[in-house]
């Protein structure tokens, strides 16, 4: 069992927890994820390792309540335990000195971009970060990202923080002023990754995206997480989750995420009927 040692609400329906998982903490690298289960009836869901503390043997998870499992996690308290945490899984990000890197995070994907940008900064890169959200209150971890970036640009759909627009608008601003970018990362909602990959391609910037397909085992043994990259079928849990953004078949990724839409709805409705009012989430 994996005990929750702290919990904080960081935005509407978004939470941060630290959990005891010493084995994961001592082996984790930026870009990797864990698979968790809340209980013995629970589903196995993947979550990015947003940070880890080797001394305390703890990992930090940041999640958005979107369905049964993440709602249930949001109701858990300090001292409660997750049934399972398996990891670290996936290939770590390719950390080296690129020169100038552009880090694009959107929504809860900001949690995944943070550990990578920190490490890239430590590796001597100039880090420019673009964070995007629908509105100011959904731009999470802004201060932490800012601390480890040379420059931070915020975009919001409604203009309530930073520039009004989406992350690709931020990318275009940088291009216009002639900023030379050697590599980019984009992590967030699939549509955001898709369009930032298109924009990066137009601008000639190589870009990694971190795909979030539905997974089961997370260890390469089922193929649930398969995606088409270039002409090949790849398993995101072992061959990824990061892939060359130019090569991803985006429509397929989005279709596959909708596979269990009907059941996901039933599952959440059942859960809400059982636990009562969850509007406070």
């Amino acid at each position, binding site marked *: 069992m994996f005990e929750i040692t702290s919990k904080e609400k960081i935005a509407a329906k978004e939470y941060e927890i630290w959990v005891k998982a010493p084995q994961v903490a001592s082996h984790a690298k930026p870009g990797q994820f864990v698979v968790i289960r809340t209980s013995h009836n629970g*589903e196995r869901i993947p979550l990015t390792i947003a940070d880890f503390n080797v001394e305390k043997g703890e990992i930090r998870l940041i999640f958005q309540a979107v369905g049964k499992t993440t709602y249930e996690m949001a109701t858990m308290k300090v001292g409660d335990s997750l*049934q399972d945490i398996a990891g670290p*899984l996936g290939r770590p990000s390719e950390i080296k000195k690129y020169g100038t890197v552009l880090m694009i995070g959107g929504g809860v994907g900001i949690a995944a971009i943070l550990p990578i940008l920190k490490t890239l900064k430590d590796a001597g890169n100039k880090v420019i970060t673009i964070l995007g959200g629908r509105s100011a209150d959904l731009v999470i971890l802004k201060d932490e990202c800012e601390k480890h970036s040379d420059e931070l640009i915020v975009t919001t759909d409604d203009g309530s923080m930073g520039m009004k627009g989406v992350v690709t608008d931020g990318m275009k601003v940088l291009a216009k002023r002639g900023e030379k970018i050697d590599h980019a990362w984009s992590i967030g909602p699939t549509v955001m990754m898709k369009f930032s990959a298109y924009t990066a391609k137009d601008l000639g910037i190589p870009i990694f995206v971190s795909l979030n397909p539905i997974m089961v085992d997370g260890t*390469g043994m089922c193929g649930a997480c398969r995606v088409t990259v270039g002409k090949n079928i790849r398993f995101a849990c072992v061959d990824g989750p990061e892939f060359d953004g130019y090569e991803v078949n985006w429509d397929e990724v989005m279709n596959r995420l909708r596979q269990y839409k009907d059941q996901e709805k039933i599952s959440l409705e059942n859960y809400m009927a059982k636990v009562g009012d969850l509007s406070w989430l």
Partner: protein
Amino acid sequence: MAVIKISNNKTPIKEQDPKVRAHNFKEVVLGYSLEEAVAEANRCLQCVNQPCVAGCPVNIDIPGFILALKNRDLTKSAEILKSYNNLPAVCGRVCPQESQCEGRCTVGKMKGHEPVAIGKLERFVSDWEASQETINIPEISSKKLGKVAIIGAGPAGLTAAADLAKMGYEVKIFEALHAAGGVLMYGIPEFRLPKSIVEREINFIKSLGVEIDTDSIVGRSITISELKNDFDAIFIGTGAGTPSFMNVPGTNLNGVYSASEFLTRINLMHAYEFPESDTPVRLGKHVVVVGAGNVAMDASRSALRLGAENVKIVYRRSEEEMPARIEEYHHAIEEGIEFHWLTNPIEYIGDDKGNLTAVKCIKMELGAPDASGRRRPVPIQGSEFTIETDMVVEAIGQTSNKVLLSAFPELKLTPHGYIEADPETGQTSIKGVFAGGDIVTGAATVILAMGAGKKSAIAIDEYVKSKKVAR
């Protein structure tokens, strides 16, 4: 010599009615009563040359356990079985007896006779033992001979662990998933192998002092060099779990599954109990399963139990080459699975939302024999046709699990990507590292994996002892 009179057929065994069982996940075969088991034991001739024993991959003293059963000494019968086979309740249910012990049985060679139902008797005796109040835990040596790490809690790893623990080793199993058992837990369905039986065997192994660390992926959660530092020897039993796909156009449409995913959702994650269990699985109405091995039988019969209106198996060879256990094939036919021999999918067709709607197939014919000695199926030009379907399950084979192998590049592999290991000892190219089961042989059987675990346990004991003497 008196003329021996034995009934032509095996003593019939009770099974759930096909119409009923096609809608539930409970075990199909209900088992023998003591009287039925003794009657079946009486069909055994107690052959001096013991052909059945030679047909058994771990050479169980078959006439011995059958004789004890015939004499109604079930304790002794169970003891004999357990001394050769750590998982008799499992093997009695899933071994391909028709090509092993029963395939060699003298009675089966007599005109018009079926062999002795060795598998069903093995199952009877081990289920009887499990139903007893007291389970004998063998004496375990209290002095600790050394520490052994086992990677993977499938039949190979569990067997090696149990044997080493009995010898007096401190044994720790690292298992990637949240439950031990390997394919027994995530692959073979409840209706063929109840999970309570697998759990019972695992609890027995734990009672021997074996520690099982689940959620522990070697190569990720713990490295090989950490294991080398902390343990005297390592046994790798990581299996062949990576699904292969045919890679025809449309493979990533919604509704196309690998059998591994489909069965893992159902067995390990209990998707058939959704929404009580959180993990969903697609409920196909018109299901096509590709392949005709045990995995394909399990997938097709599971789809039926989830409520499919019809389930078709398409296989590129003919009935004769079908690799599944014969009992499963018969059960599948009884339950109404349709078989389309000499048929191969060439394309999956979907709608504009990426959902599968049909599969395009081609008819095949058998040509000249290939490397495996089987006649190679070749497509018949112009014979394409389509089947409307909302779910396809590909059960065309698995390959080695890569996570460990990619974290252990020093380990020598075969050209097919399995670990190179001595068939008698499991010794790999690296000192102190042993391997067995599907990760060495490629997808095979439970009994072969178990046998490999047994051989390696002996070799590991010798290795650790010689190492300690040398020091």
